[in-house]
């Protein structure tokens, strides 16, 4: 059914998952296209990990279907699993194994053997920056290196779909940047699903984002689409020499302005202007300032950040 549409990597339809009384995922429907870096975003407990466990065939859905590359996750579970590379939440690893030994084990279970497997392991060790750690015991590696081992494992068999569940949790800022760069690099060739509750992560790496809350989708689109969808988006910040109330009254008259608030700081006033629509009224504001012969120190447009969109959508 979905095989005909070549550009869809993963198709999730009407997905529901109940654990007893808890309705973890409700009527989730979305598609991931080939070559996308798809951000799957939501607060903790929103149902991200549950959804990914269903996609990777670890647990079945209560109702609804998922197909990966045209294969159904229930009927062709092994085919689906062959196509997926998965880095689970908290990155579980066999702590008593050596890095290469572990990658060899993972590769063998992926049906790889001999020279092909060892050259592929060497390649992953290079890509993930594990060269110095190959002979170390996994349990003795730092968190950053463990994460790389997990990534190397997930990418080892060159999967069509790479699923990363919170890949940067617990890393320090430098490691986060490194892992983020690595994911961007992978994302140029691969389809990636990136689960996270951290917005800056997702907006920095993903081409498209789906936000879920309490198991239901609340918004989807690119980072820009999401911010502009939330109408209240544009705000202007001005620093003008003059008396606050006077400036407030004059700026209120400019077309497209919905509210103005000014705070006086000696002879300078800091003014925040919120506008109704999404169009750029910067020039009108500037004209108004010039017409009144005020001095202008700053005029800046501020868009609602993804952060605000996220809080608005997932609050309560």
């Amino acid at each position, binding site marked *: 059914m979905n095989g005909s549409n070549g550009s869809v990597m993963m198709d999730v339809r009407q997905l529901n998952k109940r*654990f007893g009384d808890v309705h973890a995922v409700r009527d989730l429907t979305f598609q991931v296209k080939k070559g996308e870096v798809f951000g799957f975003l939501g607060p903790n407990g929103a149902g991200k990990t549950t959804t990914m*466990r269903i996609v*990777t*065939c*670890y*647990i*079945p859905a209560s109702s609804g279907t998922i197909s990966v590359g045209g294969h159904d996750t229930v009927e062709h579970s*092994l085919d689906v*699993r*062959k196509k*997926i590379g*998965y880095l*689970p939440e*908290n990155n*579980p*690893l*066999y*702590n*008593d*194994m050596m890095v290469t*030994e572990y990658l060899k*084990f*993972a590769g*063998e*279970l*992926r*049906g790889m*053997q001999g020279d092909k497997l060892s050259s592929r392991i060497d390649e992953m060790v290079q890509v993930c920056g594990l060269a110095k750690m190959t002979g170390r015991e996994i349990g003795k590696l730092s968190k950053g290196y463990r994460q790389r081992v997990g990534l190397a*494992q997930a990418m080892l068999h060159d999967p069509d779909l790479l699923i990363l569940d919170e890949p940067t949790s617990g890393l320090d800022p430098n490691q986060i940047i490194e892992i983020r760069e690595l994911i961007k690099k992978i994302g140029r060739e691969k389809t990636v699903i990136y689960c996270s509750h951290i917005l800056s992560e997702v907006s920095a790496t993903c081409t498209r984002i789906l936000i879920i809350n309490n198991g239901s989708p609340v918004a989807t689109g690119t980072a820009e689409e999401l911010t502009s969808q939330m109408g209240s988006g544009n705000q202007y910040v001005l620093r003008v020499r003059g008396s606050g109330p006077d400036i407030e009254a004059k700026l209120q008259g400019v077309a497209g302005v919905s509210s103005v608030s000014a705070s006086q700081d000696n002879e300078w006033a800091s003014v925040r202007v919120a506008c109704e629509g999404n169009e750029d009224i910067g020039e009108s504001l500037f004209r108004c300032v010039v017409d009144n012969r005020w001095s202008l120190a700053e005029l800046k447009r501020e868009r609602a950040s993804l952060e605000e969109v996220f809080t608005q959508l997932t609050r309560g």
Partner: protein
Amino acid sequence: MQNVLAIFKKEFKAYFLSPIAYVFITVYLVVTNFLFFQGFFIINQADMRGYFGLLPWVFLFFVPAITMRIWAEEKKVKTLELLLTWPVSDLEVVIGKFLASFCFLGITILLSITVPITIALLGNPDEGAIIGGYIGSLLMGAAYLSIGLWVSSLTENQIVAFIIGVVVTFALFMIGNPFVTMVAPAGAVPLLTYLGLGNHFESVGRGVIDSRDIVYYLSVIGFFLFLNIRSIESRKWE
């Protein structure tokens, strides 16, 4: 098949990655040798019946120690979630793990070869009976292993897996014991005697291998491996 082999290799190596394997083998050999040779010179007979007679009791504590880690650790560290999203069937994982624990037990049992050698130096034992006894020990050990393996899949705590493993094995051992069959209703006695883990080892301990005993042990192994697969699948019906 490649999958079973990969799991087998990984699990088998895992025994020797920690010193536990060496401690285990040493303690096993010291305990069984001590208990056997204690009475050997008093009885003054060149056979191994006394040795094999010990094994149902010794295995009761040693075998759950072999299997306690095998699933519980995977559940605790959550590697199970990763392993089962790789393209392997639950059956392949169960078989691979079972074979690895079986080989480890096999090595431990075979290292007791010093016992028949010692006996052969002192007298004239019946080799057939000894070989039969070893085959029987492996079969009985495998049955104990399948129970321990299943119990380990029910918990993420190794100690709990060990204790419950001992209890379940002991229960299956005792239902065929005269202790229970003496007080059980007469109609149930033949069934209980048949089901008891220990009764099938008595003739084996004398070196007599009866096909009924082999069928019994293979059935026990099959049944508990099946339960093991079911308990791994149980994540799906939560």
